[in-house]
C-alpha cells in the first residue's frame, strides 16, 4: 500500500468521478421540460436497471462469472417474488426474504 496522503487523494479522485455521473444529468435535465419521447424512454429505465442489477446477481456466481441456477439467492428469490406480488409491501418483502435466506442457510449447514 502507498502512503496515507496518496491514498486519501485517491479516495478524493474516486469521489469526484463517482459524483459527476450522478450530478450532471440532474443538473442538465431537471431545468427544462423534457421531450415526451425522452420521458417515456426514461420511464422504462428504472424497471430495466433494476432487472439488470438483480437477475445476474441471482443466476451467476463465482470467479470468473458463470451461470449457476442452484444458488440459494435464486431459490429464495422465487417465494420472495410471490410474496412481493401478493403483498406489494416493501418492508414485508425484505423481512420475508431475510427470514427465508436465513432458514436456507441453516438447512444447508
Amino acid at each position, binding site marked *: 500500500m502507498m502512503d496515507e496522503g496518496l491514498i486519501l487523494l485517491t479516495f478524493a479522485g474516486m469521489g469526484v468521478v463517482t459524483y459527476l455521473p450522478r450530478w*450532471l444529468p440532474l443538473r442538465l435535465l431537471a431545468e427544462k421540460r423534457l*421531450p415526451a419521447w425522452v420521458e417515456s424512454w426514461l420511464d422504462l429505465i428504472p424497471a430495466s436497471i433494476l432487472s439488470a442489477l438483480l437477475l445476474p446477481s441471482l443466476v451467476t456466481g463465482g470467479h470468473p462469472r458463470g451461470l449457476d441456477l442452484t444458488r440459494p439467492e435464486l431459490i429464495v428469490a422465487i417465494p420472495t417474488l410471490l410474496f412481493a406480488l401478493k403483498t406489494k409491501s416493501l418492508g414485508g418483502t425484505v423481512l420475508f*426474504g431475510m427470514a427465508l435466506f436465513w432458514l436456507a442457510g441453516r438447512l444447508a449447514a
Partner: protein
Amino acid sequence: MNLPSGPSPTEPWSEAVKPGLAAAWPICLGYIPIGVALGVLAQKAGLRPFDAGVMSLLVFAGSAQFIGISMLSAGAGPLSVIMTTFVVNLRHVLMSAALAVHLQGRSKGFLALYAYGVTDESFALNMARFRAEGWNWRRALVVNTASNLAWISATIVGCHAGELIPAGAFGIDYALTAMFICLLVLQMRTRLHILAAAVAGTLAVVLSLLMEGNLYVVIASLAAATICLPRGGGKKITPGERSGA
C-alpha cells in the same frame, strides 16, 4: 446550513424526516452487512478506520469501494483505481437522468446535494415512492442521507469490530436483494415495463457472462429501454412544439 427551499407547496423539512426515515430502513439494514464487510476488508488492507470512513464519505458507492480497496492492496496506482471507479459508477448517469423527471425545477444547490446520495438503492426506492402518492424531494433527500449515514457508520464499525459480528446473521445479507425484488414488482406497471425488465434482465445475464466488470448493467438497460420504446408515440418534440404536448 443553507438548505435550498424551492417554490414548492410541500411540507417543511422537519416534517419530511419521519416519513423519509420510515422509508429508508430497508436500505440502512441492507447497508450494514456490506459496510461492515467493507470495513473488514479495509482494515485487512492496512487502512485506518479514519481512512475507511473518509472513503465511504467521499465515494459512497459500495461496489466501487470494494474494487478500489482490492486494487490498492494489490499495488495498483491511483489513476487506474480512479478510472475503474468511473467505469463502475457510470450506470448512475441513467439513474440520475430518470430521477431528473421528478426533480424538475429544484434549485441548483438541492440538486448538487441530492446527486451525492444517488446510489442503486436510493434511486430504486425513491423512484418507486415518487410514483406513489405523497412523496416529495425533501423526503427523498432524507432517504439519501439516512442511507449515507448508515453506510459510513457500518464501514467504521467494520474496521473496529468486523470480526466480532457473525457473518450471515438473520439473513441480513439478503435484505437488499429482497428489496430489489419488491421494487422491481412495483415497477411492473404496464406490459411495456414487464417487457423492458425481461429484455434487460436477459441481456444483463448474457452480457455479464461475456464481459468483465459491470458495464453490462448500463448496456442492457440502455438497449432494453430503447428496444421497448413505443415507435408510434416516439416522435421527437422540438422546443417549439412543446406547449402542445
